[in-house]
């Protein structure tokens, strides 16, 4: 479905992706884990061509994508993306957000697009919010709308960039439930996440990234049970350490969140 080969990405002097190789087969779910700043988002954004890698190849359904010759807009239609901060269009209703691209890009008749959108909203449990504006929704609801918006283009693969990181803990479940539904329907997905339980449950493969490199790829049972690399083990023990807590095991006054690396102020 998607193959990434020897991908390198620099931001000025910063070498963010280093010879990244990855393959995702149709129907597979790949969870991408790793510390903050390890390049997970950048990898997703390169796959969706929101960023341009300096070298390396990206194949979609076996075809090498040429940035210059291929219509990237067409490709992006087939690759759905869900962002950490939702990025809903605030000036449009929930329904407006979902039908925008089908109507404006695919020229689907409004009536048909609306019917499809309502079915998608039904699926994410928000049919009753169709006429609301994003500002009237909770974070979990916003993220579910964002998922419906991406699905409306009938993508062949869905990319999730920390879809639950910005949510209050009690709202994480509703988004994960929707994502699990997609997994059951056989959607091909790459999910950057810190929800290790989710990864363990649904991932076909777990990819651990560190400092721009893919350190280890394996089945979740292996990664979470007996990872081959020391670095993977250290990362997971920090994240999963039940007593450590989010800011545990660190000198006081200078704590860094164990999940995403954010500082407490």
């Amino acid at each position, binding site marked *: 479905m998607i193959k990434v080969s020897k991908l390198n990405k620099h931001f000025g002097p910063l070498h963010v992706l280093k010879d990244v190789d990855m393959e995702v087969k149709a129907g597979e779910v790949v969870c991408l884990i790793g510390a903050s700043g390890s390049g997970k988002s950048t990898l997703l954004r390169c796959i969706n061509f929101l960023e341009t890698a300096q070298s390396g190849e990206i194949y979609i359904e076996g075809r090498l994508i040429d940035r210059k010759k291929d219509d990237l807009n067409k490709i992006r239609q087939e690759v759905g993306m869900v962002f950490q901060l939702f990025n809903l269009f605030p*000036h*449009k*209703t929930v329904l407006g957000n979902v039908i925008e691209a089908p109507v404006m890009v695919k020229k689907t008749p409004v009536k048909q697009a609306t019917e499809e959108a309502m079915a998608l909203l039904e699926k994410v449990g928000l049919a009753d919010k169709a006429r609301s*504006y994003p500002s009237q929704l909770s974070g979990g609801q916003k993220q579910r709308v964002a998922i419906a918006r991406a699905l409306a283009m009938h993508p062949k693969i869905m990319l999730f960039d920390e879809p639950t990181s910005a949510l209050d803990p009690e709202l994480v479940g509703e988004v994960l439930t929707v994502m699990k539904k997609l997994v059951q329907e056989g959607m091909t997905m790459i999910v950057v996440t810190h929800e290790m339980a989710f990864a363990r449950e649904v991932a076909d493969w777990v990819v651990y990234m560190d400092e721009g490199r893919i350190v280890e790829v394996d089945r979740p049972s292996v990664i979470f049970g007996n990872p081959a690399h020391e670095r993977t083990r250290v990362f997971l023990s920090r994240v999963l350490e039940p007593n450590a807590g989010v800011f545990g095991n660190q000198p006081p006054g200078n704590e860094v969140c164990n999940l995403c690396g954010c500082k407490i102020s």
Partner: protein
Amino acid sequence: MFKRKLPIMLFVLVVGMAFIVTGCGGADTSPEPPAKATFSYAMSGAYPPFSYFDDNDNLLGFDVEIGTALAEKMGLEADPVPTPWQALPLGLNAGRYDAIIGSMTITEARLEKFDFSDPYYRSGPKLFVRADSNIKGVDDLTAESTIAVLMESVYEELAREYTDKLKFYDNDVLALRELAAGRADAVITDQIVGLTNAKELGLDIVSVGDLLMVEEIGIAIRKGETDLLNAVNQALADIKADGTYLAISEKYVGADISGD
């Protein structure tokens, strides 16, 4: 809820705008395409009694009516174009009008840029002072005397002969007011203008001495347009001959100012 209304509001705004701009526009902003060929001529519109607007915004004055009379003699439609004094030469060069009938004195400097008709009136600058002033003529002026003059006018050069302390004004009224208020010691301006304005404003000022020079006021025409120049000179002679000129002159200034 506004969100669906915003495009409508914008639409209304744009349509309204188009309506405002085109719908009721035109008439007083740009000259209508004339039925007859026109003779367009410019004056400041701020120089009574030569050119001014009355309370109903009608353009009147000696210059304006002379232009009308000349156009009639030439068989053309008169089209007076009031233009700020400083921009008069610009507009003539740019072809915004055919001539300047704007009480413009014929000078060497101006002759380099334009052709001038025969003088259509003669006047001259005089020295104006406050009634209680001890300046009784140009001989009483010293290097310390401040003279107020119209900016970009021939009076500027004249005033420099007596002092370097000049104050410049956009119109004679301001200059005369400065004189009356004691912020200038004297004003050099056209005697007709000075006298009519002083009377109008009720300023306690007087003219002293003789005409400082005899100015010949002509109609400026772009260089090389000899046909028009000749036609204007002919028409000028005609209106002087048939009494039209005298009537206009007496109507606005109360005397024959042709100086012939």
